[in-house]
């Protein structure tokens, strides 16, 4: 049985805002499942339903085999939740935050102590454990938030846009940590609007837009569907090579543009050596080659007619405002 089973899930806010139009998907145990979509797509709504914070208007969802509406307490015991907005307590130290969390999950004292050390180490915050969270950077807060989500050994960890607004280095740290915990057996459900995040991190991706799932599959497969990799070749005799390439089965398409060959193939890395071999046989010299891979953004464009990139600035801006507001607290 899948760890998450969602069937025809609908959510309408206040009787008129349709956030989810009836989505269905499964998440398998042990995988990293990504929910990729722009602002307002319905990602947070989905996570909140799965984490028992809100109830769906119709449809059903089970997490770890328990219905999120009928048996919320069973679900709660088994999940970890890292919300979109950082919510660790600024006025406590990192350790105190974790202590409180562990107590709320009824962890016995010795287990609590041990586990807190473990998660602090996992997210690399041992040295700052006894500092007030106030003094932490955005990335550190996120990591503490993740540590908290993991503390009680959940079967599945939900993360709602965990790298939003972070610098590239901090994002990579978080990706590595998520992969690490996934290796230890935690299923991960992550929402994001960063296509590279979904691409590099996830085993399985669902593309969601305006409350509907538009495409679902492994990132590689999804990208293949848009057409495949593109190779650019600079040679001393492009016409001769072009003729040959067009006759090869693993070449989807090839054209000559101003003397440069533009070749569409399924998997660029595998095909490059084969093309070099053919060229050598023909006596053609390849002077330069470059490989361009389709991104999940291309997939997004294919299914929605819009680009994910347009959303970025807006989100970062919102995060900055949020951090400002948070500083003013107390």
């Amino acid at each position, binding site marked *: 049985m899948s760890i998450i089973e969602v069937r025809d899930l609908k959510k309408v806010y206040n009787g008129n805002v349709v956030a989810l139009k009836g989505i269905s998907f499964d998440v398998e145990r042990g995988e990293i499942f990504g929910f990729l979509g722009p602002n307002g797509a319905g990602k947070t709504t989905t996570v909140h339903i799965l*984490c*028992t914070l809100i109830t769906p208007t119709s449809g059903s969802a089970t997490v770890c085999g328990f219905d999120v509406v009928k048996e919320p307490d069973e679900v709660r*015991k088994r999940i970890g939740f890292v*919300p979109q907005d950082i919510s660790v*307590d600024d*006025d406590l130290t990192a350790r105190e935050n974790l202590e409180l*969390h562990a107590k709320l999950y009824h962890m016995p004292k010795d287990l609590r102590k041990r586990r807190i050390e473990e998660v602090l180490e996992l997210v690399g915050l041992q040295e700052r454990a006894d500092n007030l969270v106030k003094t932490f950077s955005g990335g550190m807060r996120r990591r503490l938030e993740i540590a908290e989500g993991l503390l009680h050994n959940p079967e599945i960890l939900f993360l709602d846009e965990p790298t939003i607004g972070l610098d590239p280095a901090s994002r990579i740290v978080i990706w590595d940590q998520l992969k690490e915990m996934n290796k230890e057996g935690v299923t991960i459900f992550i929402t994001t609007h960063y296509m590279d995040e979904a691409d590099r991190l996830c085993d399985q991706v669902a593309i969601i837009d305006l409350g509907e799932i538009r495409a679902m599959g492994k990132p590689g497969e999804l990208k293949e569907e848009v057409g495949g990799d593109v190779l650019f070749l600079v040679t001393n005799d492009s016409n001769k090579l072009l003729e040959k390439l067009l006759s090869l089965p693993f070449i989807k398409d090839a054209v000559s543009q101003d003397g440069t060959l533009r070749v569409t193939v399924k998997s660029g890395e595998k095909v490059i050596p084969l093309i070099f071999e053919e060229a050598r046989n023909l006596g053609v010299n390849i002077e330069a080659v470059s490989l361009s891979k389709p991104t999940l953004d291309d997939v997004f464009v294919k299914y929605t007619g819009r680009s994910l990139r347009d959303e970025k600035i807006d989100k970062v801006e919102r995060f900055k405002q949020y951090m400002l507001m948070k500083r003013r*607290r107390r």
Partner: protein
Amino acid sequence: MIKEAYYICERELRHFIRMKIQIISSIVTPIVWLVFFGYSMNIMSSGLGGINTLSVLIGGERSFFLYFLISSLKLTPLQSLVIQNYLGISYLDFFYSGVIGVTVMFACVFSGLSIIWDKRFGFFNKLLVSPIPRFSIMLGKTMYAMIRGIIQGAIILGLSFLIGARIRTGIVGVALALIFMLLLSLGFGAFSMSLGIKLADQEALFGIVNMITLPLFISSGAFMPVESMPSWLQVIAYGNPLTYLVDALRLCLLGGSYSALGLPFSLMDVAPRLIRDLVALSAFTGTFLIIGTILFRGSVK
């Protein structure tokens, strides 16, 4: 449920001890009142006289407390001094129970802010995702209000004593006074929680609380006896929970002072009026505990 509530309460207490300025101001403000009002009124009544609001406590036959305005008796400064010394009750003695009551109120009426903060910054959601009984959240936060109310009240009681206010009943009276403080702390805590659950931003709670605390404060009898107030103000006073706390504190802490008149009054003799205060405070506290519970249950599913 109680255990989880305690964890939530513990977090609030940690916040409190980290808010140094808040702790200092919550102690300094009442002391300023005690010293400025308590002492200046004393000096004026004994030395200069003629202060209209000066009052003394005298036990009456029917009501256990009859508050007189000395000016209404047209006493000379000397006479007023004599009566005061004879009764052994200074304005400071009269006033400190009022300051304790007001301190308890201010310690609790803003506690609902924490629920608004938590809702705004997602901490509330994190509590809701955890497998704790929902109600323990509200219980824990109200528990914190109660603890804070009684601690601050007790500190002011101790300090009043140190600066010369008299406690005339002894340990039983003090214990009773603490119980009354606890009761109204719980009530004001639940009241503030009810607001916190309903309101979306902290300014709204500040606004509402500021709007009501001033009238509650003035009409409570902390500064002057309710009996000496204009009748329209008395109506407000008797609908004000703080009035009953201040009254109960005076009865508990000064109850025995009537024997100074040679009258056989003690804590036992003021019991009927203490019971009246107890009933009034319980009604207030109970009402807001129920309202808070209903609102809370309605807001989290």
